[in-house]
């Protein structure tokens, strides 16, 4: 739908039209300010000294820019009794997210390939079961998972968290790849079968090379989900293995000492940076992932 909306009814004069156009841009601009405001406040607060925060204005630019809060947030802020900043937890999140994203994407690709192109009895039932599984509130698996992680001897560890994220990630990754692979004509794989190519060969030489866009979508989706996860992180970690979201919450809501709002904000920005960066660099794929599960097609 392109140029119909501004096609003016004949009764409108040019002045009214230009006025409406201006109004439209003003409204859109105001909303842009609304969405940007918290980010602006976070950044400016993180660059102020505590003294300036107490005496100054939330909306004002810092009179004197200081990076002290960033230094404290990165390597000195206290999460409970430990005061190492968010640095160790940032790396925990990396150690959790990278393997979990790669493993769940690989499994999803294989699953999607099977469900879309190797029809056998039960494949559709599997897909339906998996799809329903995407929608359960995770509260319903928290208690048994805590016990199973204990039985497996990986409770409170980073491998434990990787395991949990892989298990509950493959529903979505399978969905992504299945929906992508059904659009690849089955004649392609049939012809390859006639030529003697096997299951893995067809996947490796035909499907995988075509999959780059959906691999990017899957990686971005999984990374955002896992990096931003709090529920699993807070339920299945212990001191030392917590992901950054849990550490951030501990810093902000720790009740001891002076409230250092600038440090809180710097820590929050550090926690947000990786996913924000992914969004800015690959926003198109981010949106595709978001809408893949919710829009038909």
């Amino acid at each position, binding site marked *: *739908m392109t140029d119909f909306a501004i096609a003016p*009814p004949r009764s409108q004069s040019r002045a009214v039209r230009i006025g409406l156009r201006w109004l439209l841009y003003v409204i859109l601009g105001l909303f842009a300010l609304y969405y940007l405001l918290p980010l602006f406040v976070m950044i400016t607060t993180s660059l102020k000294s505590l003294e300036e925060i107490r005496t100054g204005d939330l909306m004002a630019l810092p009179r004197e820019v200081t990076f002290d809060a960033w230094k404290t947030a990165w390597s000195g802020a206290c999460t409970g009794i430990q005061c190492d900043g968010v640095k160790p937890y940032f790396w925990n999140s990396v150690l959790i997210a990278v393997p979990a994203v790669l493993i769940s994407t690989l499994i999803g690709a294989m699953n999607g390939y099977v469900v879309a192109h190797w029809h056998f009895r039960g494949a559709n039932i599997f897909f339906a079961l998996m799809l329903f599984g995407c929608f*359960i509130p995770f509260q*319903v698996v928290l208690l048994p998972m805590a016990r199973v992680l204990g039985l497996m001897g990986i409770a409170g560890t980073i491998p434990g968290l990787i395991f949990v994220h892989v298990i509950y990630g493959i529903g979505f990754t399978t969905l992504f790849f299945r929906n992508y692979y059904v659009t690849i004509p089955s004649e392609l794989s049939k012809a390859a079968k006639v030529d003697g190519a096997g299951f893995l060969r067809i996947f490796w030489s035909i499907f995988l090379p075509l999959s780059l866009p959906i691999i990017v979508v899957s990686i971005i989706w999984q990374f955002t989900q896992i990096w931003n996860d709090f529920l699993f992180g807070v339920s299945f970690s212990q001191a030392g293995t917590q992901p950054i979201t849990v550490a951030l919450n501990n810093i902000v*809501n720790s009740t001891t000492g002076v409230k250092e709002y600038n440090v*809180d904000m710097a*820590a929050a920005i550090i926690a947000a940076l990786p996913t924000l960066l992914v969004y800015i660099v690959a926003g198109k794929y981010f949106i595709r992932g978001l809408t893949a599960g919710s829009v038909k097609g």
Partner: protein
Amino acid sequence: MSKWLEEHLPKVVLAPSFIAVLVFVYGFIIWTAWVSLTRSRLLPKYEIEGFIQYERLFAAPRWDVAMNNLFIFGTLFIVISMVLGLMLAILLDQNIRTEGAIRTIYLYPMALSMIVTGTAWKWILNPGLGLEATVQGWGLENFTFNWLVDPDKAIYTVVLAAIWQSSGFVMALFLAGLRSVDTEIIRAAQVDGIPTWRVYSAIIIPSMAPIFLSAFIVLAHLAIKSFDLVIALTGGGPGFATDLPATYMYAMAFSRGDIGQAASSAMVMMGVVFTIVVPYLYSELRAKND
């Protein structure tokens, strides 16, 4: 042997995931359902005792608050996000020159963790130094905005932050919907001299019914699972004023040591999700198989 493997490889590939889903989704649901029927406290017990946990749950004032909050939060969050999202989508669909940049700005909160969102809004809404002080500084000395610490209003701050986070996403959904409406029909309507607002209200918006449904499902699902935002923004407080079912469940499971209550509240949450999602998924799957 290799022939057998070649023939059955697809099933072999799918088997681990199949087993994982059966055990870690459906098996776990059954486990939780079972435990919700027992007298489990700190440790799970497996003798079924009937619905006593559910009786306790529905008699607990804190759960009552949580369900009420879910209703208030869910309704406002879904309705306002959809109205705002649709409005922004329509405004953005008027050949805006900077559309790409504006879309990026509207949607970026969706990339943030709810903990980050909660932290930011907690600071902005903080009565001492936040927005309240700023507006007072502008000369409105009597301006007060202390919803964050007011038990009757705190839940609305959760609504505010949640809308900020998700409305851009709803906008993106609707924008995609607007772009997929058949342009022929719209042109025909314009040739007939039908005013723009009528084109929207009578042709475009009704044809987007499936998108409304999708947006509703996604938002409802987000609302029921809301946990991190409340933890970061209000911590469930003041008191229990902003408890939601998810925070109630977590408190019972991990700080109160009341597994029976945790399990039964989780089952109720799942019941709510399923009454919303199952009919939708069922119709989606049927539509695809037809």
